[in-house]
């Protein structure tokens, strides 16, 4: 079975775009036809860029939009039928197929977001936060450069020497694409293995009947959690997830023992088992008012675990025969898929529990009353986050990720990227954007009057960022997008101002620009979309000697 992945589709498109360039010299398609196809390629790449940058203006997106407009500007109305004439023209056919692959990749990417633009999968959360944005944009940039090269050579042959607006648009794409692709080396990205997001809603998930079904159910459980961890995760669902996770870890233990039971594996498995068991035990007697069970996410994970257990256990013992029968390779893949999913599930479970606890959605039993000391039918009271049972649960689910990550390394699998990476990047950006080190530590040594004027916009911007970040009530999607966008703006503004201040100080006093603290040299400096000669119109440099 062929699995559609984002990386696979991009790789196919890259290969076809390269081939279309190689075939261009011998078989040139009609220019009108070529304009339509290459325009569609540009438009698809434009949509990629916009999604990856979160809609913030980006030079590559602007250049691609401009090139798409110019590519179709020469096309007559009505346009020629693309499919009817691409067959005998290899270059156009290759480009058409590249466009189709890019379109599929685009759909995979877009499926990570809902109609309102909010992330609906863990990968979407990470993308919104900007995890790996530079490398993703670089990959799109490399494709854009290939498309521009194909456009230049496989078109009517005049674009290479043309000085008109169309050729200028191609050159802009090439320049922007080369600039962005130079910012990151080609390499593995968490988007490479990204699969189309599943539609996970309602109160059911079909029974799992195969290894593929397990993989889909794991994706479904993560997707469901991504949509619910910051809204309405119930105590019962936390327990369902913890229980299924515990059983999966036990089953992984059995699979690991089939590959040899070294001491490290045993310790890691014990660590993970105890962590998931603690969470399962801690989730007992913590409930929510919504008693409805069978939500799609927990059900998907439970169904997946149920199928795995049925294959591996019967009558209370492990079934070695079945493992040999169904093939070690498939079980290795399934084990890796489970270990890849567990850390992400653990993170969202942790955040979801904290959210439910702080929003008073959890209930715990009232203090024991006289009667049967073991089994009681208590009153349930709305729990505070500091209620011991809730504290115990929160601490237990907080401890799930680390052993789960260790377990994934045991199976040579890398955990899925998601909320964990998004929150880490978010925190890092907020810290960078608001750290006082970015302001001159000894203002008296600087030319005070000009610099203080230049610094005026900084405190309000940083204050706005702090206020928004601290005041946000939702974590993950909305909070991340708000604070990341603000952090980006503030950090870029600070960096531009800092460079201006350095130059100003040099020009005024003739001194060497102050050495930057390492923390100030952030990757964001390289991510800045501003051209090299950027100069804020509001912050024009004063003439030397005015200070």
């Amino acid at each position, binding site marked *: 079975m062929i699995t559609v992945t984002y990386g696979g589709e991009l790789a196919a498109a890259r290969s076809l775009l390269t081939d279309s360039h190689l075939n261009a010299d011998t078989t040139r398609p009609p220019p009108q036809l070529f304009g339509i196809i290459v325009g569609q390629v540009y438009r698809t790449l434009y949509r990629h860029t916009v999604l990856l940058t979160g809609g913030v203006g980006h030079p590559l997106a602007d250049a691609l939009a401009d090139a798409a407009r110019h590519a179709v500007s020469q096309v007559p109305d009505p346009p020629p039928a693309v499919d009817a004439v691409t067959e005998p023209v290899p270059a156009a056919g290759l480009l058409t197929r590249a466009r189709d692959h890019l379109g599929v990749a685009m759909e995979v990417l877009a499926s990570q977001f809902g109609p309102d633009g909010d992330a609906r999968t863990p990968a979407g959360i990470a993308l919104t936060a900007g995890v790996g944005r530079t490398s993703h944009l670089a990959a799109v940039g490399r494709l854009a450069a290939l498309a521009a090269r194909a456009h230049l050579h496989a078109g009517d042959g005049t674009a290479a020497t043309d000085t008109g607006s169309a050729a200028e648009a191609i050159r802009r794409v090439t320049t922007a694409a080369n600039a962005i692709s130079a910012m990151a080396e080609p390499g593995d990205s968490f988007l490479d293995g990204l699969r189309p997001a599943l539609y996970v809603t309602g109160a059911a998930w079909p029974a799992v009947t195969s290894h593929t079904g397990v993989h889909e159910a794991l994706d479904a459980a993560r997707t469901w959690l991504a949509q619910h961890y910051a809204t309405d995760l119930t105590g019962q669902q936390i327990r369902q997830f913890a229980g299924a996770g515990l*059983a999966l870890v036990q089953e992984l233990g059995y699979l690991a023992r089939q590959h040899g039971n070294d001491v490290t594996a045993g310790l890691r498995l014990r660590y993970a*088992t105890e962590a998931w068991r603690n969470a399962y*035990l801690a989730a007992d007697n913590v409930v929510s008012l919504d008693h409805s069970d069978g939500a799609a996410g927990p059900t998907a994970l439970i169904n997946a675990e149920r199928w795995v257990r049925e294959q591996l256990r019967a009558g209370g013992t492990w079934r070695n025969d079945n493992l040999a029968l169904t093939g070690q390779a498939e079980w290795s893949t399934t084990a890796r898929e489970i270990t890849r999913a567990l850390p992400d599930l653990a993170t969202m479970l942790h955040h979801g529990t904290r959210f439910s606890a702080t929003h008073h959605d959890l209930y715990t039993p009232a203090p024991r009353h006289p009667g049967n000391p073991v089994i009681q*039918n208590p009153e*349930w009271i709305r729990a505070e986050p500091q209620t011991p049972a809730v504290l115990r649960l929160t601490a237990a689910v907080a401890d799930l990720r680390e052993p789960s990550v260790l377990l994934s390394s045991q199976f040579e699998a890398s955990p899925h990227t998601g909320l964990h990476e998004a929150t880490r990047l978010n925190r890092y950006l907020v810290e960078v954007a608001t750290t006082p080190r970015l302001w001159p530590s000894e203002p008296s040594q600087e030319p005070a009057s000009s610099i203080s004027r230049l610094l005026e916009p900084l405190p309000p911007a940083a204050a706005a960022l702090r206020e928004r970040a601290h005041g946000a009530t939702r974590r993950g999607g909305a909070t991340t997008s708000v604070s990341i966008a603000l952090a980006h703006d503030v950090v870029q503004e600070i960096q531009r101002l800092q460079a201006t201040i350095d130059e100003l100080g040099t020009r005024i006093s003739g001194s060497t620009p102050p050495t930057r603290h390492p923390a100030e040299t952030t990757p964001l400096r390289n991510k800045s979309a501003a051209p090299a000669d950027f100069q804020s119109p509001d912050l024009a440099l004063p003439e030397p000697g005015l200070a």
Partner: protein
Amino acid sequence: MTIETVLRDAVTALSCNNVTASTAYAAAKLAAAIAAQAAAAEPDSAASHPWDFAALELDAAAHALRQDTEVVVHLDEAWYAEADLAQVAEQLRALVTVVLAWCVAALDTAGQPGVAATDYQIAAAHLRRGADEIP
């Protein structure tokens, strides 16, 4: 109090022909809690998996039998300190057998208030698997 006495009392109480839907639910819940705690108390962690699977199955059975109210099981970890887990397993199996027998009988006389016939079937299936898993 020890975990063995808790189990013995429960089996005795249920064996007096006074099992109802609510007591069956409470007994399944108790069985699940005891199995879960036994998994944590199992000195050989590699041998803990049957307890964990038993706990999950029995919890699922309790979930199927649950009516409008949720009961709470209070178990002290100290009760397991001196416990003979083999003895606990034996008594736990006896408890599950009683509940399972009631479930199967209730299937024939379906119409117990608050619990549908399908719930009994689900509970019985989980109880059987849970009994199989108890070490």
